[in-house]
């Protein structure tokens, strides 16, 4: 822990290969700019340029990685100052990059998965006449995401943070002709903005109390701050994380975000962007590791636990292929948040799970995309089924991802998730039992809904055979082209192997940033927990098989179901809550204010004018035209004047 706090002191100036780090941002950004400005002219080669830039970035990232590994552990935190962005007296926001194990890990994940998904999209979007623009947006996203993880201060992070928000807005609303897509996009951006407010306020607090927003300074001075400030910043940062990572209470936008094309769901809403919250908290570990931050960490853990349960429960009830995966993502990120909430004991595991999840969840989504691609974009799993034979590669890769996710022994999920569960237990005391228990329960539920998904989509009877898709075409399922299968294969390999490899090396690799991994031993030994987890997952899977595997499934979802299912189908009433608490009152308030503005404020103004006019109209009647009345008014006036004069004098 001490290592983490004075870590700011050890920041080196970037040199050698690292001096070109700006390429990471510029390459994709350049691609995006060219594609957007060139317009239709670029339709021919747009997708190629888009992919090339990202692959290039990936190549450079690998280079940088090896360059870094060649350094001593303490010199691995480097900064590259690009230019002074906003600098006024005591406030100096510089535009710089921080190259350290944590950011590099993310860079590799983003550019790696990003490249794969770019390649995948070439095939997936081939018949969309705006494919060029799609790639432009993807590039924009990659560049923003890289800025998010590479920035060397909270403001640069915020820049990337909102940048990815924009990209995700554009991509969710890709089918902008459809109202629901546009609405989903808007919803996503707004809920993210709510989180961003938290992040912004945290930044303001930092400036007020520490006079800077750069990591180096903030992490240096955070120890001297009062508990109140620390907890406040901690919780505000968490709010930001909740927004971006679809954590409770801001989880509602993520499932709707599935309105976007599947590659988007895979890249942004599964592998990378939604994990930014985890990054933020891990990045702020000098804060959360402080003993004063105890309460903040507890809140983080609670949010994580609650979210992972919510995700699982709702995931069990949905019939939409991608939405189930989305809720699965929600719950998996819940695991990660829970992990980083555990502090030094969990940061590494959080990141580990983040990486493995990056692999298998991306794979799962791509698989889903491939299925829908072959099924006229049919997303309702009740209308699928028995596709294993039709699209074997998809089936195999998807199954591998599935196994990894439910933590099948020695696949990547097994290492990462079990580690988190174990860490949760090792928190000790009632806390340990509660959070550990929840995590364990989550594992079971995950196995249940994922198995259900597997069965309904790939196994069982082909229910689609005598159905037509909504645009009236019959279904002709077929395997996708190599541009789509290749990435799936790569990711499948990753989801099989990554865990085993990473779980060994990751903790010490990340140590310079996250501090040494603190091994604590809870009531249960790791082996016990491992066995428990596998057992519970097996039970979950078994139940699922028992329920869905043996009987014929109806094509339309049964309406008469028990309350829990109804609740789950209604997102546990999360949307209803937002609706009731914010949306509707907001609309009412707006209507009321519009009324006030027209009738009240403006009405007053016009009222005064009308009043003057009216009184004028009435008063001019006094000008009767009779000379004698004029004389009278004069006499009255003079009497008044004289009376007044005398009164002033004698009174």
């Amino acid at each position, binding site marked *: 822990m001490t290592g983490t706090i004075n870590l700011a002191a050890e920041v080196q100036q970037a040199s050698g290969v690292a001096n070109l780090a700006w390429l990471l941002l510029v390459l994709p950004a350049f691609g995006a700019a060219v594609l*957007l400005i060139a*317009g239709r002219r670029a339709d021919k080669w747009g997708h190629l340029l888009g992919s090339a830039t990202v692959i290039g970035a990936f190549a450079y990232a690998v280079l940088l990685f090896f360059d870094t590994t060649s350094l001593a552990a303490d010199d691995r935190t480097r900064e590259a100052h690009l*230019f*002074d*962005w*906003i*600098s*006024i*007296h*005591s*406030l*100096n926001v510089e*535009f710089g990059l921080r190259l350290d194990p944590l950011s590099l890990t993310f860079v590799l994940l983003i550019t790696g998965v990003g490249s794969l998904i770019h390649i995948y999209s070439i095939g997936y979007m081939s018949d969309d006449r705006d494919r060029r623009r799609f790639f432009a947006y993807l590039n924009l996203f990659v560049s923003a995401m890289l800025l998010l993880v590479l920035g060397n201060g909270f*403001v640069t992070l*915020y*820049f990337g943070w*909102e*940048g990815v928000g*924009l990209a995700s*807005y554009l991509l969710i*609303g890709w089918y*902008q*002709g*459809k*109202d629901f*897509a*546009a*609405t989903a*996009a*808007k919803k996503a*951006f*707004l809920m993210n*903005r*709510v989180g*961003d*407010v938290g992040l*912004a*306020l945290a*930044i*303001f*607090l930092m*400036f*007020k109390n520490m*006079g800077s*927003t750069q990591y180096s300074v903030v992490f240096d001075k955070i120890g001297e701050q009062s508990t109140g400030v620390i907890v406040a910043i901690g919780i505000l940062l968490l709010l930001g994380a909740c927004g971006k990572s679809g954590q409770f209470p801001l989880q509602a936008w993520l499932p709707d975000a599935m309105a976007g094309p599947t590659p988007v769901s895979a890249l942004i809403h599964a592998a990378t962007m939604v994990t930014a919250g985890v990054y933020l908290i891990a990045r702020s570990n000098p804060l959360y590791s402080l003993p004063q931050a105890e309460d903040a960490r507890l809140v983080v853990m609670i949010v994580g636990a609650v979210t992972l349960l919510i995700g699982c429960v709702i995931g069990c009830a949905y019939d939409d292929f991608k939405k189930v995966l989305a809720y699965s993502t929600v719950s998996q990120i819940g695991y990660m948040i829970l992990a980083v909430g555990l502090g030094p004991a969990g940061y590494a595991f959080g990141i580990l799970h983040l990486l493995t999840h990056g692999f298998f969840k991306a794979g799962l989504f791509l698989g889903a995309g491939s299925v829908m691609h072959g099924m006229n974009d049919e997303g309702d799993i009740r209308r699928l089924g028995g596709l294993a034979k039709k699209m074997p590669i998809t089936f195999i890769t998807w199954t591998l991802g599935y196994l990894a996710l439910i933590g099948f022994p020695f696949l990547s999920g097994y290492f990462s998730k079990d580690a988190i569960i174990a860490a949760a237990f090792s928190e000790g005391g009632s806390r340990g039992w509660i959070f550990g228990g929840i995590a364990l329960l989550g594992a079971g539920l995950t196995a249940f809904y994922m198995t259900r998904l597997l069965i309904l989509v790939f196994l069982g009877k082909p229910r689609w055979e005598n159905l037509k898709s909504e645009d009236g075409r019959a279904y002709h399922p077929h395997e996708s082209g190599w541009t789509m299968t290749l990435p799936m294969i790569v990711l499948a390999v990753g989801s099989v192997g990554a865990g085993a490899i990473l779980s060994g090396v990751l903790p010490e690799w990340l140590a310079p940033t996250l501090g040494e991994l603190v091994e604590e031993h809870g009531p249960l030994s790791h082996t016990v927990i491992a066995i428990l987890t596998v057992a519970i997952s097996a039970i979950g899977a078994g139940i699922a098989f028992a329920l869905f595997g043996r009987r014929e499934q109806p094509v339309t979802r049964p309406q008469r179901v028990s309350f829990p299912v109804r609740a789950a189908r209604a997102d546990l009433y999360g949307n209803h809550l937002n609706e009731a608490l914010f949306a509707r009152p*907001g609309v009412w*308030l*707006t*209507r009321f*204010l*519009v009324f006030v*503005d027209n009738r009240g*404020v*403006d009405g007053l*103004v016009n009222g005064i004018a009308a009043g003057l006019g009216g009184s004028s109209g009435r008063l001019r009647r006094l000008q009767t035209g009779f000379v004698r009345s004029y004389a009278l008014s004069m006499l009255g006036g003079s009497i008044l004047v004289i009376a007044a004069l005398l009164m002033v004098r004698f009174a």
Partner: protein
Amino acid sequence: MSTSSTGSWLLAALLLLPLVGAAVVVALRGNDSTAKAAALAFSIAEFALAIVAWVQFEPGGARLQQAFSFDWIPAFGVHVSFAVDGIALAMIAVIGLLVPLVIGAGWLDKLPEGRTKGGFFALILLEQALTVGVFAATDVFLFYVLFEIMLIPMYFLIGSYGGARRQYAAVKFFLYSFLGGLIMLASVIGCYVLAVEQNGTGTFEWAELVKVVSTAPLETQIWLFLGFFAAFAIKAPLVPVHTWLPDATAEAPIGVAVLLVGILDKVGTFGFLRYLLPMFPLASKELAPLVLVLAVAGVIYGSMLATGQRDMKRFLAYVSIAHFGFIALGIFAFSSQAMVGSVTYMVNHSLATGMLILVVGMVIARGGSSRVADYGGMAKLTPVLAAMLLIAGLSSMSLPGTNSFVSEFLVLIGSFPNAPVYTIIATVGMVLAALYVLWLYQRVMQGPVRGDALVGAAGGPGTMVDPAVGAKKAIADLSGREKLVLAPLVVLIIGLGFFPKPVLDVVTPAVDATMCQAALADPVQSGERQLQCR
């Protein structure tokens, strides 16, 4: 008395060129095309001059530069004296940029019968000259004179070239501002009387008056402050004296709306900085809470009303009201970061909202209606236009990477230390901003094609038409001219988002000077730096 430094000829030229231009254009109004050409030429020349002035300006130099001055009414110590500091210079540059664009945007507009393009552009150039004067005046009397005169061309621009309810809007605009101005006049005279009482001979020189008035007792300062504040609050406009703006914006032709929201309103916030803080430091501190409340109220109120509007131009007006809330907040939060933020906000708001208005104008030009309900799914027909609307919108919700982010960020982070509660409330405005921008974008650009004009162009109500065939018919995407008009704004919006330094450097010294005239110190000190007054 008559101080003349290098480049004073420049300022004089900046003031006179548009006047000459107006005269020439009026002379040529018989022939539309030549008149238009002349107007454009003059406006561009003016912009070039503004750039030269910008280059000549030494941020490290004197408080007021390029000054020139001569007696006007000796009896009252009134001078015709002009000079610029960073703030004024920034505003003048923005005017110089916007006017050519406005002229370019209005190139093909249909005017009410009997009106000539020449007259229209001449009035715009005249307005430009007057606004430049207002920002550059360093004699309070002169400032007041220009402040009032400024109303007249705008009155005619709205009244004779505006929409259906233009008479109402024009008169409302004029009376509102005129009343504010008169109340300010009382304070102006009050300051003069103070000067006479203190050192025998009265003067209206800003620098002199600052010396005199800033030492006056609190009681006096508050009264004088309120007089000025009334005028500036109406001009800015702050809630609750804002209701003239929606009407004026809704009725004014697009180009005029740009000038109105983009430039004229800035005079109010400029006045806060140039007159309220330096002249009435005590009163400013005393009454800061009042202003802050109005400011924050403006942010929330304006944003919520924006979401409630049915008319796009009224919508724009309320958006600006919200933004002016931010600006006022930054000025009265009394920290150099916030104040610099406010000044850059004045610049950026002109660019962002200016572009937003121009784009909306192009939308209206195609759809033939300013009601939001008459649009939908337009992005399919006019993707570039949609992109432009989105860029302008993103900037006005101050997304990082756009110019407005820098200013809004500075305002908020600078205001937080002194006024945390107000800042937190204002931060909610960020969410609302996203709400109203995206709401407009969705209603107009996304979803199925709606609205008679659009459906007519697309063929069949709400059908997903292939733009390749659908758009070509009635509704064309941006023309080369329109692209040319918007291009500079896009470049600046994004460029200043990444490299705000040029603006910040010019503005900061002026803000420092203002801060220390008002005897204000930064809440967050970096230690080594001390404010020293120039």
